[in-house]
């Protein structure tokens, strides 16, 4: 941030809220300067002015946007892994669509994929979900299960088909994550994919799929899709299911009929 921008941030802050006026722009500037060389072992306290600026600019959209831009710019500036880690943690709290592109660029790399999701998974902007969905075909190895999991947490209905494609994956972590995420998404389409796969699930996947179907049924029921929930519960009462799954399905069925 230039000194002119910093002054502007303070002025805007001053008009927007009393708290925003407390931003110490010189200290914030120094903290951003520190970020350029910040690495593991550095004093974390040197970055505290940025933390304080985040609190102080609450409710001040212009100041927040300026602060976010500085964080995004820092991310693109070749900083260390530790500094990237710090920036993503802050963008988790204040990131908007303005941050998505820079965070999405970190998703395919093994060292940064998770910390990028650390921010993106919690960003309410739909572009954050779009970025994770778009990245799914581009990642390899265990990063797949991470993205699948985040899309599940976000209950991204648009990802159902893509995630279902991982149910039979030879990577058991990705397959398990796919089952769990479809359960969390909890739409009729997700239920359909789980049911379609259930009959051909390997021994390792039988319980994850059964559990996911139970979770899915609970989500369906909570969302008012009673008939789809009941269908799942019925399907889980066969002799091929462990006793605990049959019992859970029976309980679920009773709950569904009370609704």
């Amino acid at each position, binding site marked *: 941030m230039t000194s002119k921008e910093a002054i502007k941030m303070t002025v805007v802050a001053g008009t927007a809220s009393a708290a925003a006026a407390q931003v110490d722009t010189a200290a914030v500037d120094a903290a951003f300067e520190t970020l350029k060389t910040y690495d593991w072992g550095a004093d974390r306290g040197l970055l505290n002015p940025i933390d304080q600026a985040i609190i102080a600019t609450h409710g001040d959209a212009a100041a927040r946007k300026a602060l976010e831009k500085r964080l995004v710019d820092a991310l693109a500036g070749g900083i260390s892994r530790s500094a990237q880690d710090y920036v993503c943690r802050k963008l988790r*709290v204040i990131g908007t669509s303005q941050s998505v592109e820079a965070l999405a660029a970190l998703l395919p790399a093994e060292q940064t994929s998770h910390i990028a999701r650390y921010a993106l998974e919690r960003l309410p902007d739909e572009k954050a979900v779009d970025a994770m969905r778009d990245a799914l075909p581009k990642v390899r190895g265990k990063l797949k*299960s991470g993205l699948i*999991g985040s899309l599940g947490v976000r209950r991204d209905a648009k990802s159902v088909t893509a995630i279902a494609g991982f149910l039979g994956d030879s990577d058991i972590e990705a397959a398990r994550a796919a089952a769990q995420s479809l359960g969390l998404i909890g739409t009729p389409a997700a239920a359909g994919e789980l049911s379609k796969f259930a009959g051909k699930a390997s021994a390792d996947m039988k319980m994850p799929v059964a559990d996911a179907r139970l979770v899915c049924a609970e989500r369906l029921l909570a969302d008012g899709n009673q008939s789809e929930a009941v269908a799942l519960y019925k399907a889980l009462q066969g002799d091929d299911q462990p006793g*605990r799954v049959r*019992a859970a399905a029976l*309980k679920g069925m009773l709950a569904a009929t009370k609704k």
Partner: protein
Amino acid sequence: MADYTINSAKGRYASCGRRAFLKTAAASVALPYLIPASAMGADGNVAPSNRIVMAGIGIGNMGRGDMGTFLGRNDVQYVAVCDVKRDVRDSATNTVNQKYGNTDCKAYRDFREIMVRDDIDAVHCATPDHWHAIIVIEACRNGKDIYCQKPETKTLREGRLMIEAARRYGRVVSGGSQRVLEDYRAVVNACWGGSMGNVKSINVSVGPFPVDCNKESQPIPDGFDWDMWLGPAPWAPYHPHRCSGSYSIDGTSWRSFRDYSGGGMTDWGAHHFGGATFAIDVREMEPEEVIFHNENGRKFATCRYPNGKLIHHNYPGRKNMQVEGTDEQGPSKPVPGYAGSGGIYGDFIDCVKTRRNPFRDIEYAVHTTTVCHLFLIAYELERSLKWDTVKQQFIDDDEANRLVDVARREPWVI
């Protein structure tokens, strides 16, 4: 696969594989000489076939103590230990095998291998906090009861998922704060006995807050699976302070750091706020508001419950567990306690047998850690927040809602 979920307590043991082993063994000539009468149930001992078969996950420090207590019970048969540190699991394995005079106890680095063992009824978990939710949910999913050390949750979202998993599979899930009942008896008895009149509030003094850890990289000790220790937490280089299980919360233990703990606010907060919610009888509900105060730089906060009761944190001029009541005699009611014998551990084992909810049922435990997390988020953002207890989200505060959970490092999902 043996599955005990819907069986009666009696049925649980009847279907235990160990009993089948003994039945076969008893037919041989030599075996009766190898098994002492005490092991078969004489002298007040419980025959192995009728014991709760247990394993421990995270068995350094607190877990070692938990293991010792369960191992000392004659109604428990301890068969497996799990830890990411080889020396810790080897030492624990030796302890168990010495106790039983055999080599039956198996050691694991990955808890999931314990979860899929059909012969294990229950587990206890004393890993760092960032692992608790994953392990509790996985235990429930695999039909195992679980005793989980406090603080049971690392984030707000985890709590509801843990309760749902416990209820879905009908598991006994006990939180791990013995202090809730044992440390604050006088306060609890006064409130429940009516001598505090109509209780309005209670104050808890606890801290410190968790901090970020940026310690430098050091060589990973031989036999330590660092990646598994980090688990769902963001990657970070090994440093002994980052993962020390010391009880200090001064930047030299994992309890100090945000990625693995809520600092003193959850570590001791699970005890204090647990006692406070018990004393003022709000265990069954969550606060619907947390009010942040900043009076001339002196920060403190208050949680308000739907019934109007308040839990203060660091209220100026008030002591820890100080209750605000009214002058008249209030209603009196019996104080709940543990089932069975042997404190909170005995309560858990008794409930495993009877299928009742334990004293520190996961729902009560989660409601306590929810208080801790609500305070932490209000302090982090330095503002008051309204909490929708049904939707499990903050009302009209997107920023606070981002702090309801964290994205987990691959491959971990809940």
